[in-house]
């Protein structure tokens, strides 16, 4: 059997902005689409797209939604219109998978660059956008560090107490994060604050 993901390199190279625009247009179209057959065709088309771009993993995004999807189908079935229920499920599946495909094919760095370009009109108006970029970069850097600190706090709780750690750990956790923020602010200040890069 031949490999299906022939279009993956091309899809990855496509500019992030274009992919986001296509996703927006397709999402609006999916919201306006009605009827079982057209929506089933849409799901088939999205799955085919996922296969040829090597991003079938995007289907996994549906798993956490399973409860809500099943509940909404059941609600419609109970109200006497299972066809509408199935149509709704198909639409959600298509929407979520399609968005997942775009995310899978666009690296974070491309998304950040697209965000920066999207904010460029603000820059021209004199609104500083550098703080937004810095805040996003800091969040990405600190999230795993703070998760690690949460584990460390849990460990030190367990060495001192026979009880399991619980929500009381949140207080030192939040205080620690706020102290980190003060140190990071000093570091930002020492590096000149938010000087806009001039080309």
């Amino acid at each position, binding site marked *: 059997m031949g490999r299906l993901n022939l279009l993956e390199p091309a899809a990855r190279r496509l500019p992030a902005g274009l992919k*986001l625009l296509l*996703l927006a247009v397709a999402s609006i179209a999916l919201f306006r689409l009605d009827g079982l057959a057209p929506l089933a065709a849409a799901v088939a088309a999205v799955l085919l797209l996922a296969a040829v771009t090597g991003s079938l993993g995007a289907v996994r*995004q549906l798993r*956490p*939604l399973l409860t*809500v*999807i099943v509940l*909404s189908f059941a*609600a*419609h079935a109970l*109200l006497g219109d299972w066809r509408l229920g199935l149509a*709704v499920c198909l639409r*959600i599946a298509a*929407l*979520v998978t*399609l*968005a*997942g495909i*775009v*995310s*899978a094919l*666009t*690296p*974070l760095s491309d*998304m*950040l660059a697209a965000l920066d370009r999207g904010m460029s009109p603000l820059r021209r108006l004199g609104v500083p956008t550098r703080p*937004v970029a*810095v*805040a*996003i970069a*800091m*969040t990405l850097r*600190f*999230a*795993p560090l*703070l*998760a690690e600190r*949460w*584990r460390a706090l849990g460990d030190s709780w367990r060495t001192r107490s026979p009880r*399991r*750690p*619980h*929500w009381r750990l*949140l*207080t030192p*956790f*939040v*205080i620690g*994060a*706020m*102290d*980190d*923020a*003060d140190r990071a*602010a*000093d570091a*930002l*200040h020492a590096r000149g*604050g*938010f000087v806009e890069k001039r080309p």
Partner: protein
Amino acid sequence: MTLQSSVARIALFAALIAALGLVPQITIPFAGGVPITAQTLGIMLAGLILGPWRGAAAVLVFLAVVALGAPLLAGGRGGLGVFAGPTVGFLIGWPIATIVVGLVYRAMPEARPILAGVTASVVGGILTLYAFGIPGLSLVTEMPLAKAAAVVGVFIPGDILKAFIAAAVAREVRRARVLA
């Protein structure tokens, strides 16, 4: 507060909300040890500790990072798909809920911190949030509003518990540090 301090606190709180989605669930002993997803607790804390505007900025930065593709939403979800799913109303409601939490908390400076914290968390983090979440669910799934409300109603007892925890944590943090 300087711009650097503001940005650093906003970013660290966004990271804190993200970290609360990464860690194993937090247990509450007096509720029979039921585990709770702590991310909505982070939304309440953002409003109580950072105030309405910086708190909302932190939530927006967190949502931006999720939209860019980082799998930081509880359960390792992330990417654009979460904004197309049935819970999109709650995500849109998060920053607004944070603003309401912060404003209500600020409007009650004379009240006992716990009372003010719980009131703010319930009005912002539950009433305001569900006012966005339920219509969002109803819109995406085409369920009637009452049905959608019934589906998410099971989460409300847990959210009330979170309001108490958020109020208690905010009081302790404010005792330990002066947050201008």
